[in-house]
């Protein structure tokens, strides 16, 4: 079975005056129908650029410099802008951290939603309105008829995000890329949105890439996890296995610094130093300077290795590897 979406050795670089920013530099992963991949990493690690690359939204000075983005086996990176436009918002949709990236502040919600429906399907206005109403109901917006006649500024942040999600749902896409959609929201509202996302995968079989820096959200939501560091995936595998027995020292450090993983009141385990500048990445393993397990061999770039079935890490000296493989 081919995955719904497969990203293979994706490279997206920004050719700036200060030099080439290798924001995404050899990223690979796959998501199946009805599954959620949690893409985690700290700010600047390349999560958003990965999402934009999938959507074909990378603008100059950036461009996809290599690799493949296979949507049901078809390479998106090789499509024309017109072909991509036919897929975007239709078969592949994105939910942004800021819902106003999706919403137009001067248009009523019904206008925006009806336009979106009619952009990809020949349906009557009335039918499109019905679809919009259903989508709003689906994301838990009360009195959808009344809400359709409102403008975005008349909604709270959480409701705006739900409208943006409803718009992403209009065509029951095969793939949704969600870029930190709940980061700015309160926990009780975040819970509502995560519940919607779960339902969506289950009911419509959408494959989802959920981008976040919050490991706890990924723990509750995702099937698989890919951890990014400085433009690369450094570890990936099933969520339970990665969170319970991480291989890569960076993953170990990230999990260790979550407060609930520490004894109350004791100093938190912390990763020393900070993320390197993408313009000036160290040779070899880019985590080397912060890594407690670094050794001279780490000055060579470590390959992505499968240390146990379905579990990969880009490290020559991983933790928690089962005896046989190590």
């Amino acid at each position, binding site marked *: 079975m081919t995955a719904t979406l497969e990203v293979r050795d994706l490279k997206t670089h920004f050719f700036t005056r200060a030099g080439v920013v290798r924001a995404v530099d050899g990223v690979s992963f796959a998501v199946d129908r009805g599954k959620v991949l949690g893409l985690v990493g*700290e700010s600047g690690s390349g999560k958003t650029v990965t999402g934009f690359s999938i959507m074909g939204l990378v603008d100059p000075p950036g461009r996809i410099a290599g690799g493949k983005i296979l949507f049901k086996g078809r390479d998106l990176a090789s499509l024309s802008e017109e072909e991509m436009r036919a897929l975007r918002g239709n078969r592949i949709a994105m939910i942004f951290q800021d819902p106003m990236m999706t919403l137009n502040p001067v248009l009523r919600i019904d206008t925006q939603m009806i336009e979106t429906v009619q952009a990809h399907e020949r349906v009557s206005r009335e039918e499109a309105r019905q679809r919009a109403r259903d989508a709003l109901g689906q994301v838990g917006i009360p009195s959808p008829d009344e809400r359709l006649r409102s403008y975005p500024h008349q909604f709270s942040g959480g409701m705006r995000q739900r409208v943006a999600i409803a718009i992403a749902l209009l065509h029951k896409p095969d793939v949704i890329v969600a870029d930190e959609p709940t980061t700015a929201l309160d926990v009780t*509202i*975040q819970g509502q*949105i995560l519940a919607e996302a779960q339902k969506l995968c289950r009911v419509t079989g959408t494959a989802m890439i959920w981008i976040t820096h919050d*490991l706890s959200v990924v723990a*509750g939501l995702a099937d698989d996890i890919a951890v990014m560091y400085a433009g690369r995936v450094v570890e990936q595998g099933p969520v339970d296995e990665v969170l319970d027995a991480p291989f890569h020292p960076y993953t170990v450090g990230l999990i260790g610094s979550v*407060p*609930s993983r520490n004894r109350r009141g004791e100093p*938190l385990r912390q990763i020393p130093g*900070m993320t390197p500048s993408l313009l000036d990445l160290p040779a070899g393993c880019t985590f080397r300077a912060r890594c407690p397990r670094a050794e001279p061999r780490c000055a060579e770039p470590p390959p992505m290795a499968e240390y146990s079935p379905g579990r990969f890490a880009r490290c020559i000296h991983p933790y928690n590897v089962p005896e046989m493989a190590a």
Partner: protein
Amino acid sequence: MSAAVQEVAGAGLAPRAPVMELRGVSRRFSRGLDLAAKVAQRLGAPVKEEIVHAVDGVDLSIAKGEVVGLVGESGCGKSTLGRMVAGILPPSDGAILWRGRDLRSLNGADAREAKLRTQMIFQDPYASLNPRLKVAEIVGEAPMVHGIVRRRDLEPYVDEQMRRAGLDPAFRRRYPHQFSGGQRQRIGIARALAVQPDFLVCDEAVAALDVSIQAQILNLFMKLRRELDLTYLFISHDLGVVEHLSDRVVIMYLGRVVEAAPAEEVFRRANHPYTQALLSEVPRIETRKRAFAGVKGEIPSPLNPPPGCHFHPRCPHAFDRCRVERPALKPVAAGHTSACHLNDRT
């Protein structure tokens, strides 16, 4: 640290003399009318200015050396409360007692001391630092102005504050934009420490930082607490962070305190339905593939809060009384208070 925790937790019943005490503190803001509304009002239309009850009748007492975590959702009044505690915003009603003395009654040197002793650390370190000043000036300005240090001692003094906050004094001539987010927060901390406070109000001080950097800054706060015997009001929407470092936790909803208790008690035996809902929605790294549910309904607007218990429209247990009568904050266990009518029911 653990010694201090035990001391305070043990003192749950008879806390040490409070350094800060809030009695029935409220703060209202009026949302000014726009021009059209003003004209309409002039012409006799029944247009009223909108009043936000940002903080509504809060009692709170903070003992010396205590770390009090203040939690609640966006707009519930945490920052407003924090600013009043820090003495940079006067309450509309009620009294704030600093070391037993009403802040309003202080003047001259006393008022100045009260202000310096309580310092505030903000979420966005960048917005709170003057981009045109070098770090040494940012950190050294206030202690110079207030005569805490003489000019010829300033340089070593600034170096000491920077080191304490975990910044290399070699960076003293750099500007804020030349630092990372975590380092900028350290600059904010060094600036606050430079006036020798004994009380820090931290308003979402780690919210903008990545987890690995957040851990570094939280560790710094805990180290400073030990070294300088600081008291903290630690405002955060992140319950994991609050659980980790607070002795006591105060939960706010729409301007009011709904529950307050020692940290472990809140996380083990939350009493208020809002606290329970909040805790059940917090994603935890230990909980896998859970079914999310969400608390039904929206957070109501503080412009027009529901009558009675503010939480009643979203509360699964609400009954008639909740819709009309404001529940008082009452003891439910040692050192544990909650404002919910259900507690009167048995």
